[in-house]
């Protein structure tokens, strides 16, 4: 038997880890580096995992446990000691039973494990009652964590195999309701997750935060509405002022046009009359021409032009000149062609009425010819005069 020899060597090296497989176990998994890992069940686990090694190792385990490793049974007895209220007694009690239960269920495993485990369970059952009396108090005083670790060690092989069994076991009818309920659970989790993710960021917010958020949103909305009203009223004002400005501008333009026509700074066109005054004797002077202009103004003449060169406006002066008549410095000579814009018939009546311009001119040896026109063009401009002294009064 080579294995017991190795175990003795291991004992010589480390008194705690007596089993060679436990050493292997420590090498494989650092979690089991605690000294209590020398339990026969851990070796069972490895026996289950390493099926080739199982028979020999289990024999070795059985021999050793029978030989009386005190530590492992002590640890197991300590399980019941420190944590009796928790599930530990459940662990401690069903451990041998579970081994017995699992083995027929785990028929897929090799038979060697089946044969091995009852031996070890027997060894446990043998070792437990003997140890419960004496060393239980000692190990109960020892660290409870170590005891828990030993219990985990005891339970781990079962847990591993159970998980494996769950994954590999043939489906049975007993699993159907479990499967249904797990499906319901998964369904609920997914639905709830979707609901939460759909409902946005505020699903998990607390009530106070939500209220505060609502208040701030209300305040922001109020501010926005106030701002909106301000802007709308401002817009209306601007529209009104724009309209008024347009109207004022139009008025100003009309005024400017009117004044421009009256002051003779622009040309003018419209209905009116053309007056031709022939004066072969050169008897028609400035005063006569002024009479003509006054009569035309009286009849509502709006633009007057003499000989297409001299525009007659409000400030136009007439003066006798050796060569003719000076109109604002522009000398005009007979015959005088006077273009007048205004109501044609009224203008012609004003020229031709008895005792009027026509008779005066004819008495001076001249002749007056009046033609009413649909369109009379006044193209000449008056002399520009900027007021030097007069200022606009309020």
């Amino acid at each position, binding site marked *: 038997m080579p294995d017991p020899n190795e175990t003795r060597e291991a004992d010589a090296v480390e008194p705690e880890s007596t089993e060679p497989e436990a050493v292997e176990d420590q090498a494989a998994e650092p*979690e*089991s580096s605690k000294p209590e890992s020398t339990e026969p069940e851990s070796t069972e686990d490895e026996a289950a995992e390493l099926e080739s090694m199982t028979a020999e190792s289990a024999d070795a385990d059985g021999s050793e446990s029978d030989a009386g490793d005190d530590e492992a049974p002590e640890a197991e007895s300590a399980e019941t000691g420190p944590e009796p209220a928790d*599930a530990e007694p*459940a*662990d401690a009690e*069903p451990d041998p*039973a*579970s081994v017995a*239960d*699992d083995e027929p269920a785990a028929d897929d495993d090799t038979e060697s494990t089946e044969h091995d485990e009852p031996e070890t369970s027997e060894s446990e059952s043998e070792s437990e009652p003997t140890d419960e009396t004496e060393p239980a108090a000692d190990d109960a005083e020892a660290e409870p964590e170590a005891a*828990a*670790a030993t*219990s*985990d*060690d005891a*339970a*781990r092989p*079962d*847990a*591993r195999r*159970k*998980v494996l069994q*769950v*994954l*590999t*076991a*043939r*489906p*049975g009818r*007993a*699993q*159907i*309701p*479990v*499967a*249904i*309920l*797990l*499906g*319901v*659970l*998964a*369904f*609920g*989790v*997914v*639905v*709830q997750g*979707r*609901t*939460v993710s759909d409902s946005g960021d505020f699903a998990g917010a607390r*009530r106070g935060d939500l209220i505060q958020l609502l208040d701030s949103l209300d305040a922001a909305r109020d501010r926005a509405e106030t701002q909106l009203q301000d802007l709308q009223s401002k817009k209306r004002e601007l529209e009104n002022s724009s309209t008024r400005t347009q109207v004022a501008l139009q008025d100003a333009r009309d005024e400017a046009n009117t004044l421009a026509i009256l002051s003779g700074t622009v040309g003018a066109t419209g209905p009116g009359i053309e007056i031709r005054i022939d004066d072969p004797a050169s008897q028609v002077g400035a005063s006569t021409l002024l009479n003509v202009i006054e009569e035309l103004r009286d009849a509502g003449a709006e633009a007057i032009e003499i000989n297409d060169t001299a525009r007659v406006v409000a400030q136009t002066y007439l003066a006798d000149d050796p060569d003719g008549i000076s109109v604002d410095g522009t000398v005009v000579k007979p015959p005088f062609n006077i273009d007048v814009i205004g109501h044609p018939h009224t203008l012609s009546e004003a020229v031709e009425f008895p005792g009027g311009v026509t008779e005066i001119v004819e008495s001076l040896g001249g002749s007056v010819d009046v033609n009413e026109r649909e369109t009379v063009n006044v193209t000449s401009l008056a002399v520009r005069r900027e007021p030097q002294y007069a200022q606009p009064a309020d």
Partner: protein
Amino acid sequence: MIAIFGLVIGVAAGLILEPEVPDSMEPYLPIAVVAALDATFGALRAYLDDIFDDKVFVVSFLSNVIIAALIVYLGDKLGVGAQLSTGVVVVLGIRIFSNVAAIRRHIFHA
């Protein structure tokens, strides 16, 4: 195996069907899910402790879900729904943690 299939089928059904949770059920679903999680982890621990019984699991699962929903419903009626659901979640969370700790000790020995 069937249990894992059930899990997968449940996830797939939730993803594919995309059901809308009715508003009346909305506060209870998360609590029910947590309660079901508690029952499931308890069942896993019981399985590792070799005291698993599928009948017990079914009954505990359903009763956990129903009682959790009832507590929240009662809390809503009493005006302390948020606090009560928080309490339920805390209690169930503690239970889940202890169960997972036991499972972890079983499997990882730590």
